[in-house]
């Protein structure tokens, strides 16, 4: 890249001038597809440093930068990018920033730069849709390599994080198939599940239960969350495997018997 001039206003978004090496069709002269990067970092020194690193690469172009997380959503919309390179501290203590970015720009890949890593944080970032986690101290050539890999659709993950993610997957899979960790379902939820396995649509279920389709949707979302399943077939399989309805009717029967015994005793 021969480098266009740069305008930086602290705390505001800025775009770079079109570099001379970029042809009109958006392809760099090198022939590689252009990778557009959005930088989100609270520290100017890092933003400047990263831009200098990327300025040496013909196929990478920084299209915007942001200093604060509350400017991020706006930046994502105004400056379409292939990769968002974000400082981990910007999203510390938040839980909705990454899902919101993923919702606004589902095609954009997110890389998070962290000062230190821990298991829960790492797993959560990957779970929410982050494609790569890198240290703040990453070497420039490795940073460029990481950006290219992630832009091409790969995931950047170190050996330790692979172990953490697999462990999280295993424990989630274990808890979903473990009968001891079953959540309780209300009679209404059980009847909705029964309707689903009979092939009924939400509208039909709503009609049968005397409620609205939206209420059925809300119930379904709650059931999916409770059981950790993601669609109707998985829901049916879960109930079949755990004999949910049999247990529910057994419990119901036991309560009727108990009520009967108490009723007899009082007479």
């Amino acid at each position, binding site marked *: 890249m021969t480098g266009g001039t740069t305008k930086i206003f602290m705390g505001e978004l800025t775009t770079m001038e079109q570099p001379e090496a970029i042809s009109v069709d958006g392809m760099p002269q090198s022939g590689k597809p252009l990778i557009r990067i959005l930088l989100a970092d609270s520290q100017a020194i890092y933003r400047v440093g990263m831009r200098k690193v990327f300025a040496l690469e013909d196929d990478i172009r920084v299209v915007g930068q942001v200093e604060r997380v509350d400017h991020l959503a706006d930046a994502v919309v105004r400056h379409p990018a292939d990769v968002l390179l974000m400082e981990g501290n910007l999203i510390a203590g938040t839980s909705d920033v990454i899902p919101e970015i993923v919702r606004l720009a589902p095609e954009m890949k997110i890389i998070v730069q962290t000062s230190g890593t821990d298991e829960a944080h790492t797993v959560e970032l990957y779970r929410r849709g982050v494609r790569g986690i890198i240290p703040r101290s990453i070497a420039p050539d490795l940073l460029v390599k990481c950006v290219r890999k992630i832009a091409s659709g790969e995931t950047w993950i170190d050996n330790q994080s692979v172990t953490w993610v697999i462990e999280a997957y295993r424990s989630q899979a274990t808890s979903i198939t473990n009968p001891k960790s079953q959540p309780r379902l209300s009679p209404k939820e059980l009847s909705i599940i029964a309707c689903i*396995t009979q092939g009924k649509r939400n509208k039909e279920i709503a009609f049968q239960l005397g409620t609205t389709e939206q209420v059925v949707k809300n119930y379904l979302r709650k059931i999916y969350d409770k059981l950790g399943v993601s*669609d109707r077939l998985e829901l049916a399989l879960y109930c079949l495997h755990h004999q949910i309805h049999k247990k529910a009717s057994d419990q119901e029967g036991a309560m009727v018997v108990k009520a009967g015994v108490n009723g007899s005793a009082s007479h």
Partner: protein
Amino acid sequence: MDLATRTVEEHENELGVGEKPRLRASVRFPIALPLHLVASTKQYDAVTDNISASGILFHLDELLPPGTQVEFLIEIPEGTIGAYQTAAVHCVGRIVRSYVESSTAFAAAVIEEYSFQ
């Protein structure tokens, strides 16, 4: 009986959400259920070894070559998931793996589309 064929997109629309797929893959449930299968106009009876929302492993008398398009009906016994009659799931899929173990033929298929019946 009403069919309720659903693609992933339809399912998401139905929930009224545009949730991204989770990191977790489909969980396999070790459930043995009768299975009636049609492959290349020939019918087979099989039994499931495990089922997930995206695939199925079953055993049968013949080895089915990978790549074979299949249609199958998984029978759900009466009363097991609330229905006081036999329910069934009709699936369309493709054989992705097959092997013989202890002289029994096994096949794994992906489920591309399903509907409760």
